[in-house]
């Protein structure tokens, strides 16, 4: 009999909860693992400082988050997608197909991408984009010809760099960080070394040459990290010659283990990034479904709280953790207040 009772009560519980499931009262967020730390800080403060329940923030990467965001409108879909890159046309189209048409874009600030190595490792103190391209690119320019990357050590192409085996740990393709790495480091390096010009001279179209520039070598010297920065840190920890790509905030939290290299002669810091001197930085965003405002309690308030001067401003907790504050925060605040959607001429 007890089995019957147990299963009956279990079924009853399921039934009851299925009926109460109709009303979600917390904001549901997913997306970029770069934005996750900031979103979690805001979510905690939002729960502490308002009467709304603490939002749930999931990770998974920008692309995965936007994919879930575009699955449709309704309480069983997420309200906010975090992204470390701007939404793509393709994604907007996919959203529209599923009925997600009014999307609000919110830029929360900037993040720097730094190249760091083990504290006690060899002296990787200064990089140029061309160094990274020569080390990690699939095809490089050597002696006037485009060849499969022949380099084994850094000193082979730049005598100022240590004579140690190349080992690069770069973000995997599902990370928004990868896109910045490709555009601001690999592509620039490709142009600077003259490889791109040589490719075009060799009969490639400009687009093809650009794509070829972004390919990384696949012989094991460049490793894609699909997990979080802690995984990159673990790899660097075990490999004294390794160079890893980190977010500025992560590096600043681990200065006792990592030493950072300058890029084009500029050391990464919140100052150099906000002035635009440090070349490898990117804006961070989150996207809101306008259709959910007014349906999910606290959604608009969450966005307003996130972008408030006290939170995302230069002296707020986000900046203290490592976010570079957006100088145009006031515009973002206005856009949220007026619920301005993308493409409505804002």
């Amino acid at each position, binding site marked *: 009999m007890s089995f019957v009772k147990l299963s009956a009560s279990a079924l009853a519980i399921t039934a009851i909860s299925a009926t109460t499931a109709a009303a979600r009262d917390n904001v*549901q967020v997913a997306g970029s693992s770069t934005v*996750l730390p900031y979103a979690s800080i805001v979510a905690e403060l939002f729960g502490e400082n308002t009467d709304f329940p603490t939002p*749930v923030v999931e990770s998974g990467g920008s692309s995965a988050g936007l994919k879930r965001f575009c699955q449709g409108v309704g309480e069983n879909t997420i309200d906010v997608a975090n992204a470390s890159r701007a939404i793509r046309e393709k994604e907007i189209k996919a959203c529209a197909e599923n009925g997600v048409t009014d999307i609000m874009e919110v830029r929360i600030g900037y993040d720097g991408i730094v190249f760091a190595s083990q504290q006690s490792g060899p002296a990787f103190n200064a990089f140029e984009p061309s160094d990274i391209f020569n080390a990690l690119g699939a095809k490089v320019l050597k002696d006037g010809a485009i060849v499969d990357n022949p380099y084994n050590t850094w000193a082979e192409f730049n005598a100022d760099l240590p004579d140690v085996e190349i080992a690069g740990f770069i973000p995997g393709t599902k990370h928004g960080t990868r896109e910045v790495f490709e555009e601001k480091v690999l592509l620039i390096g490709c142009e600077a070394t003259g490889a791109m010009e040589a490719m075009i001279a060799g009969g490639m179209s400009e687009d093809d040459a650009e794509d070829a520039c972004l390919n990384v070598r696949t012989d094991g010297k460049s490793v894609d990290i699909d997990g979080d920065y802690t*995984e990159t840190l673990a790899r660097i920890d075990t490999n004294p010659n390794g160079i890893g790509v980190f977010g500025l905030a992560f590096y600043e939290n681990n*200065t006792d283990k990592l030493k950072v290299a300058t890029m084009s002669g500029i050391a990464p810091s919140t100052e150099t990034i906000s002035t635009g001197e440090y070349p490898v930085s990117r804006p961070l965003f989150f996207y809101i479904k306008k259709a959910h405002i007014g349906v999910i309690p606290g959604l608009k308030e969450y966005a307003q709280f996130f972008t408030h001067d006290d939170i995302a401003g230069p002296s707020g907790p986000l900046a203290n953790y490592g976010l570079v504050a957006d100088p145009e925060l006031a515009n973002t605040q206005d856009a949220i207040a007026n619920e301005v959607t993308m493409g409505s001429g804002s």
Partner: protein
Amino acid sequence: MTDASMQTPETGRHSVSLTASDERTRKRAKAEKRFRMYGIIAIATGLFFLLVLFASILKEGIPAFTRTVVSVDFTLTEQQREAAEGELFKTKAYANLFIAALKNELDERDLEAEVDNAAIERLLGKVGGTIREFYSQNPGKLGEPIEFDLAASSRVDGYFKGRVSRDTLQDSRFLQLSDLDLVDALTEAGIIKQAFNWPFITGADSGVDNPGGAGIGASVVGSFFMMLVVLGLSLPIGVAASIYLEEFAPQNKFTDLIEVNISNLAAVPSIVFGILGLAVFIQFMHLPQSAPLVGGLVLTLMTLPTIIISTRASLKAVPPSIRDAALGVGASKMQAVFHHVLPLAAPGILTGTIIGLAQALGETAPLLLIGMVGFVARGYPDGFIAGFTEPNSAMPAQIYTWAARADVGFYEKAWGGIIILLMFLLTMNIIAIILRRRFERRW
């Protein structure tokens, strides 16, 4: 067999003495000895790894149970509270009031080290939330001096636990070398001290800049509700399915097919169940996201085959004579099963259930896709039903999340979380052992 044929091999050998062992016997004895030694070595290796595992878990995890607190008398007036409540960033306002009060107190005490507000801010963790919560629960305490134990920042905590040392510390906005002098002075004055980390055991997850406030309590509750769902669904369904298959079902192609598929199901990777859970429970049935109910349902699917297989095995192990005797004295088939076979199989069923539950308890992968991994810090549910439907995390998910964070303070929390997880598991096992003892019958 004739005598002659028996003797033929013997004639080849010399006379065999039973007292002195010959070459072949010695060889056999040696082989046995060697085999025993392999066994002992295998056990010793296993024990060694277990010891290393336990030692490292304890070594890394024990520090999570103590915390560094700043303990000081603090008075908040009615007006101050109203002013703070009027702000948007209320907890910051509370923290600033506390910092000012602490600064005044330190100035009066005339410490050797230099004191300024920025330094105090660096020493403190996120204290505003704790203060605000206290006064919203005890509004009557306004205007009285209250002794608060407030968390120090993760780096100051690390200074006491050996994560931060004067030699390797580099000045940053998180902590400066001069701050450590202040920490030492405050420790001498008895303001900074070590305390048992209750917030770790009772609290919920916290933001990445607040390792001192992170607790595992809420996710223990999340795991508990998930286990309730798993137990409440998989045990009755699993036992009913195996009793039917074992005792009543006809032997034919169809039941064979079912049996094969149950075994296959047991080998399906758990992430697959997570995808299924997302597609069926959340997107089709519209159950809430991040809820222990959905987590429990997904884990039920994963646990069912384990329970069915072990239940069938223990039903099979009951001697047929018991069934025959019951049937022989006139019991119906159902009476024979429920009055005689099932009680005898109960210990085996319990063992299978506890193995299944333990597996489910430690599973993170299926929870990834239904929104239980990430930042889920809603705190304790409002009631029994809400425990199933309100967003919550689970212990392994929480541990995984902490291990991925930038601040080293969270890494320590992850190890501490493992200790709590093991204790939860141990409790489950003890309950199972007690139940098994009570049910155990000998024949």
